[in-house]
């Protein structure tokens, strides 16, 4: 089964650009999804196909965006929905193919990237199909596969449990065959465009190796980094080392395996991508450190629709509204709790200030409930309101300062939208927030500071920064002007579209030169 509404989704035989989307547009709202929506609408001259890859159907509700007219195709796949009805039969398996797998893993272990490794990857991908030497059945039920797993356990495992080792290997690799099936049936496109590394990026790498068509990667956050932090903290990964085997400075072996797995998914995507886009320089450097070939990388910052936001700015009165607003989903990465705690400090200084949280609460309901409970325990019921999803154009004129308490961000659109609407910001020092508020380089910095930047998870500093800005109208107005000028000069939608236009044009040209795009039917023939 694909989607509960699979029959309603638009289908086409081919498209100009196929977007590979993991857990984002159109089923999840948020900064990345808005960006995807913006890009699709910004290029009406191209037809888009969207391939959504999610975890399980129950994790997503209805579509959060209406599909733009130029989305001609949408398909939905889930990685953790196992529908294993295939008959299990004992088989010997192709020893030579599994030796290749072993050789590939040795190269991965050595950390070296070479043409030979990339060729080997292409070879392995071509064998993943049901008739291939490395089919899912061969991986799950062949003697050769067992021998490789058992031998690898003997040679490398630092965790004594073979049962855990065996199942970790199986579960970790299972999505590869699902992705391969998606890749085999995905419609032909001139360019494949992935919005992250991870599973969607790996699917992109498979498409690049299978079809030879160009792959573009645009990364907002750094997927591998976020996975790594999740895995560092996750409690479901077992550690079976005994007291005498354990070394406190050594990570649990399976935890390390999972981190390496996602790093390799990312590396394959970087290696296969023709162009790699980061939002700002630090992320680009991180991509290069994670295996992206530097000459293929570049930065394209987010941009916003200035004329639309100018109209919003015009709605503002002369007064500074005593409202601090966090605009974003109520999820742990936004660290809404730190915002709430900072409101305790703000209210201690300025009892009339309101704290608003404008964003959907359905993505992590448990966390949202914790946030609501925190409001009561901080005795902030009279000062804090959860508004749910709000139209930014209606919300921003009522806001005095946009607050971002996130523990991780890339180049948040909400800050830019706030600036353009004439609202300064106080943000944690994550991603490119300091660059957005204080400027990057002398010319940019000369525009002045558009608010304040504080360390992460420091509610008191955040609270003081918000109160200081709201209590000082001259400074507030100066920050407002700095924000407006910075957005107008460096972060407009036109600049972003123009950069992507040249990228798309180049890649489409490259695809055209390599031959016309066959439709699915033609491919089948």
């Amino acid at each position, binding site marked *: 089964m694909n989607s509960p509404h699979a029959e309603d989704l638009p289908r086409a035989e081919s498209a100009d650009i196929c977007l590979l989307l993991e857990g984002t547009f159109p089923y999840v709202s948020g900064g990345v999804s808005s960006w995807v929506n913006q890009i699709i609408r910004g290029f009406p001259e191209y037809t888009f196909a969207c391939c959504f890859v999610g975890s399980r159907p129950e994790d997503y509700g209805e579509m959060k965006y209406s599909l733009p007219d130029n989305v001609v195709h949408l398909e939905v796949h889930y990685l953790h929905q196992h529908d294993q009805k295939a008959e299990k039969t004992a088989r010997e398996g192709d020893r030579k193919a599994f030796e290749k797998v072993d050789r590939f893993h040795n190269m991965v272990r050595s950390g070296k990237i070479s043409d030979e490794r990339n060729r080997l990857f292409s070879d392995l991908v071509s064998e993943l199909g049901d008739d291939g030497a490395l089919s899912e059945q061969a991986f799950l039920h062949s003697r050769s596969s067992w021998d490789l797993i058992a031998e690898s356990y003997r040679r490398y495992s630092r965790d004594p449990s073979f049962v855990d080792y065996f199942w970790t290997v199986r579960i970790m690799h299972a999505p590869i065959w699902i992705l391969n099936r998606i890749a085999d049936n995905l419609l032909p496109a001139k360019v494949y465009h992935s919005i992250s590394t991870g599973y969607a990026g790996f699917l992109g790498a498979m498409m690049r190796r299978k079809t030879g068509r160009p792959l573009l990667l645009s990364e907002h956050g750094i997927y591998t980094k976020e996975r790594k932090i999740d895995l560092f903290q996750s409690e479901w990964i077992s550690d079976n080392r005994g007291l005498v085997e354990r070394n406190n400075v050594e990570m649990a072996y399976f935890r390390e395996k999972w981190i390496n797995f996602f790093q390799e998914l990312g590396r394959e995507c970087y290696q296969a991508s023709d162009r790699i886009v980061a939002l700002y320089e630090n992320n680009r450097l991180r991509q290069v450190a994670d295996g992206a070939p530097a000459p293929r990388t570049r930065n394209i910052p987010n941009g916003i629709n200035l004329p639309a936001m100018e109209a919003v700015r015009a709605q503002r009165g002369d007064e500074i509204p005593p409202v601090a607003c966090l605009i974003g989903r109520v999820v742990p990465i936004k660290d809404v709790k730190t915002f709430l*705690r900072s409101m305790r400090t703000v209210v201690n200084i300025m009892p009339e200030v309101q704290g608003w949280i404008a964003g959907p609460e359905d993505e992590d309901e448990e966390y949202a409930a914790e946030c609501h409970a925190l409001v009561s325990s901080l005795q902030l019921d009279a000062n804090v309101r959860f508004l749910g999803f709000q139209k930014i154009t209606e919300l921003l004129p009522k806001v005095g300062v946009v607050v971002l308490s996130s523990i991780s961000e890339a180049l948040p659109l909400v800050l830019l939208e706030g600036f353009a609407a004439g609202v300064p910001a106080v943000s944690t020092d994550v991603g490119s927030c300091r660059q957005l508020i204080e400027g990057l380089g002398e010319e940019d910095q000369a525009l002045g500071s558009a608010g304040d930047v504080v360390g992460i998870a420091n509610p*008191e500093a955040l609270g003081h920064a918000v109160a200081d800005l709201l209590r000082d109208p001259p400074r507030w107005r100066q920050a407002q002007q700095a924000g407006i000028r910075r957005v107008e000069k460096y972060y407009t939608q036109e600049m972003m579209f123009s950069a992507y236009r040249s990228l798309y044009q180049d890649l489409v040209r490259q695809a055209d030169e390599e031959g016309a795009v066959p439709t699915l039917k033609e491919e089948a023939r």
Partner: protein
Amino acid sequence: MVEVRWLLYALVLELASLVLLLSASSDLSLFLTYLGTHLVASLLLASAVWGLLPAGFRQPKVLSWLLTFSLAFFVPIFGLVAILGGVLMGYLLPAVFRDEPFVAVEAPVFTPVPAPALTGFRQEDLKGLLKSPDTPVELRLQSMLTVRGMPTRSTGRVLRDTLGDASDDVRLLAYGILDQKEKAITQQIDRAITLLETATDARRYRLYRRLAELYWELTFQDLVQGDIRQLALEQAAFYVTQALSEKDDDGGMWLLRGRIFLTEEKLEQAEESFLYCRELGLPPSRVNPWLAELALMRGQYGRVRKLMTDISTDAQFTSLNQSIQYWRDA
């Protein structure tokens, strides 16, 4: 068929033995006669039934016969029913021996593999390692794994300093560690508050006590700062008062009350609480260290010495021993 004949004899004998058993007489010889008749009947029954069993049920020979005989002999009447029922079940619900597509393989043997050491042996303080900009990120991440296993009371400061680390990974990990520990306590607080809404009188006292301890733990473990720390202390003090209003001779709550006042540097009230703990019978080993700390804050060193010497006879202490020794020798 000989088995059928044996079966008939067995049934007749068993019936006769039963008649003997049910007769009113309590004569021993009569009972022994019953036992003998029942034994013969059981031997015949077991042999007959065993002979009639399908071949699969008769393996292994001696043990399967013995089982049949035991059922017949030790469970008169019902044993027979059980045997026949068992055989019937065996016919109706036969065990299935499918041809499974699996083959047996041997589990590999674990040979301990050493982790690839980053820098070999290292003796350095964690704080220095984490703070130094020259430390490679991987090593800093490794250090964080060690920090994670330690109480935040000792590591809170280091972790908060690390929140400003240049590396995203280190920073996020520090955040995660602090957040997880804080969340564990906050969740218990939320649960206790929910329970409080519907609690009985007896339960209410225990919940007040628990809430006071949990709010105190947030401060004690160094998980909250600034205004939030102040709020946590206020909440702890509030629930201590609530608990004491339910049960005013709770020495533990008076001690906590004193510690909260001590943290807020309300020395008079703290002393009053600690002294009341002594009146309630709390041993010097629990109260004196706090009274001594209070005296130290007031600069009353002689009093500190006296208070510490008072508990020096308590031999079970480990963490306090050195301070006790110090003040006794001072």
